[in-house]
């Protein structure tokens, strides 16, 4: 309907409030993204040279057994029909049964994902706590020995194979010094003591108030989390440095200094404040990467997370598990994207 505004001009009222339109658009983009992700993953899974039938019946099965299972899995149907069946199940929250262990994929993911989430959260926390200050210091002291050290730290983080670094960490801190727990999430003495509420041992043991389990869990997680944190640190610190350099060369910083503001106020009150939005993207990406599961870290540390779950499923031709895991990873990226957008709106007045 047409209305008259304060200066007398006529304008049309939007048919829906902005927030509804925004929500619908967001949900629509999530749906399209998920559909695309599912379709691509499904097609890749079908054209890959792995055979789910062989994985089930074994190498020595007769042709008739093979054919029976082939039909049972619906592989005789056209690809698009298979995809539509799968899509219908996923929409109803059913990722199907694992082809190999015959358990619901959703149960498996609910078991392995908290392990990854716990590790990734601690890892990215370490990355932020150390990486952001390191990047700021390096930028403020550009070209100095501190900057060189920060560069070397980041370079090592980028270039050192995580497999090797993990094994060396285990050898030194567990094998030789005995400072941390070994591979696995807990020592055998502490397993199954606290009830699993979240699947995250540190959280569950804290809820149960069992601090001996908490500390044992911490001794096991600290090394792989530090390792992942180091890799995050390398990325976060370099990006922080780059963002800060850009800000520190801006005129408003010079103006602030000319006005006699303290260096701390210039760096943290002005320059750092302006890189928060960019940092959110960097941190969200880092976190999403860790939440995907670091396969090699999980293998070395016998950490039953989603990365090794998807990899094992892939090698075993368990496509339901692969697709289920991929959907979860896709959702993580989408959720973190939405979270980034929300934080943008909080920290960046222009986006309001």
């Amino acid at each position: 309907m047409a209305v008259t505004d304060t200066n007398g001009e006529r304008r049309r009222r939007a048919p829906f409030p902005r927030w509804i339109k925004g929500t619908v658009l967001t949900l629509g983009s999530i749906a399209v993204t998920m559909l695309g992700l599912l379709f691509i993953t499904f097609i890749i899974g079908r054209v890959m040279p792995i055979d789910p039938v062989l994985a089930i019946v074994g190498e020595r099965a007769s042709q008739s057994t093979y054919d029976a299972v082939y039909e049972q899995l619906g592989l005789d149907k056209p690809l698009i029909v298979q995809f539509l069946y799968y899509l219908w199940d996923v929409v109803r929250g059913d990722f199907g049964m694992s082809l190999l262990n015959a358990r619901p994929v959703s149960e498996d993911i609910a078991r392995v994902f908290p392990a990854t989430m716990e590790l990734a959260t601690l890892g990215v926390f370490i990355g932020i706590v150390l990486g952001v200050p390191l990047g700021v210091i390096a930028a403020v002291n550009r070209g100095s020995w501190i900057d060189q050290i920060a560069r070397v730290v980041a370079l090592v983080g980028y270039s050192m194979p995580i497999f090797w670094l993990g094994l060396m960490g285990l050898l030194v801190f567990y094998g030789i010094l005995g400072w941390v727990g070994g591979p696995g999430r807990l020592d055998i003495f502490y397993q199954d003591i606290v009830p699993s509420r979240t699947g995250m041992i540190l959280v569950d043991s804290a809820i149960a108030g069992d601090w001996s389990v908490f500390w044992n869990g911490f001794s096991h997680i600290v090394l792989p989390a530090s390792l992942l944190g180091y890799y995050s640190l390398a990325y976060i610190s370099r990006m922080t440095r780059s963002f800060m350099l850009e800000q520190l060369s801006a005129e408003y910083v010079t103006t602030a200094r000319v006005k006699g503001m303290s260096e701390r106020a210039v760096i943290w009150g002005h320059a750092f404040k302006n890189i928060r939005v960019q940092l959110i993207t960097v941190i969200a990406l880092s976190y999403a990467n860790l939440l995907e599961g670091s396969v090699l870290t999980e293998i070395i540390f016998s950490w039953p997370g989603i990365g090794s779950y998807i990899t094992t499923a892939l090698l075993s031709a368990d496509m339901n598990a692969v697709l289920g895991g991929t959907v979860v990873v896709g959702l993580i990226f989408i959720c973190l994207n939405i979270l980034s957008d929300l934080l943008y709106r909080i920290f960046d007045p222009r986006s309001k």
Partner: protein
Amino acid sequence: MNSLTKLMTSAALGLAVALTAAPVAVAETPPNMLVIANRIDDITTLDPAESFEFAGSDVSRNVYQKLVNFDPANLDAGYQPEIAESWDVSGDGSTITFTIRDGLTFHSGNPVTAADVEYSLRRAVILNKTPSFILTQFGFTADNVGETIVADGNTVTIKTDKPYATSFVLNCLTATIGGIVDMKTVMENEVDGDMGNTWLKTNSAGSGAYKLVSWKPNESVTLQSNPDFYLGAPAMERVIVRHVQESASQRLLLERGDIDMARNLNPEDIAGARDADGVVITDELRGRLMYVSLNQKHPELSKPEVRQAIKYLIDYEGMQNSFLNGQYVIHQNFLPRTFLGAVDENPFSLNVEKAKELLASAGAEGMELEVGVREAQERIEIAQTLQNTFAQAGITLNITVGTAKQILARYRSRELDVYLGAWGPDYPDPHTNAGTFAFNPDNSDAANATGLLAWRNSWDTGGLTEKVAAAVVENDRDVRSKMYADIQAQFRDTAPFAVMFQKIEQTAQRDNVQNVNLGGATTAVSYWPITK
């Protein structure tokens, strides 16, 4: 700036303090607990009617009893009474009547009865899962088990479709699928007529030395001892098998005393662990064989001289003493050592000159062949070694590496010139391997007998099929053993298979762990005799 430096230093110190201050519990495993690191990601189910993987067999052997079973203290003695205290064979050899031992109980407390045996064997046939062929090869079907597997009082009678060697039938009953389940408990957990299959995948209902506490896929299997086990309560009250994928991680755990046994150390870590304090290495022969096969559709490979020449172009000793050191031992027969009828004849060794002569006499010089290999490091290394030695005789060997789907699909459709692969026995009877390496009743493409290795290689076996069929019904154990020895002698000489190696499993364990038996080539690990 100073404050930033302080902040950075504080953060680093904080992490260091966290690392050093965390109270770490590093202790040896308790004397009544056995902790093992193993790769258990192959477990797909723990239902004995369905389980067909190595790690699953380890669990089943300790959780379920069978009518007859192997004594870990004397595997060479063959099957021994277990749930059946005795058995009688009918005059025509097609009916075996088992008398059930008194006083056995399931973990639930229910008594083990003939009805449980009848139910378990019928169930395995009716469910018709992958390993069901081990029983159905005797003519049992879902339709006839009502008449062929029958309990009567304290006895169970099984009637096969024709007379077989009793040793063949009883050996098959020692396989995982012969595990006897608690009918009452299983039926209480039946869903939609699945005979408890869904429930038994992740639970147990046995009468063995251990009961299943939990199986967390790709994480762990936990077993609790059965104090009422008929041979006495096991010394290890709890057995925990942890999934540790990486060899180096297994070794670290073992050397730190956090586990008692590491079952998947690679040769480098075995060599390293050998020098560690308190660690011993044990070797045990397993049933897995590594072989090369030649497609008889290939005009040159079908010549007897060429088949012989290929067997002289393999550097058995070179491989055994280098990259396969400690992991495989030379073995050129299709029955693994320790099997009934196994022989230790290994007549072939690398002899390029002799191979050249044989190739020349066959007029088959300068061949170009394709070998299909699945992407596993040791197989690829073997293929590369073959490529090298074949080249010395003028044969160009092109290596095609692929996934199981890619390579096996071509092998099963008789397309590969040469296949390099491994084979493990399905059950502890010589027929398991004889019936695939040397048995091929119909060599036509139309037969599509993809389960038979002889068929996959288009080999009509030159009369061995009949000899294998005769051996499987021979009731005299010694005569039967001799028959397999003769079959293997002919096989070595004429077959398009060059069996090369038998697997050795090297296990590293703490030196206080005693009486470990992994099951050799015939069965799986036994936890109940283990002490510390």
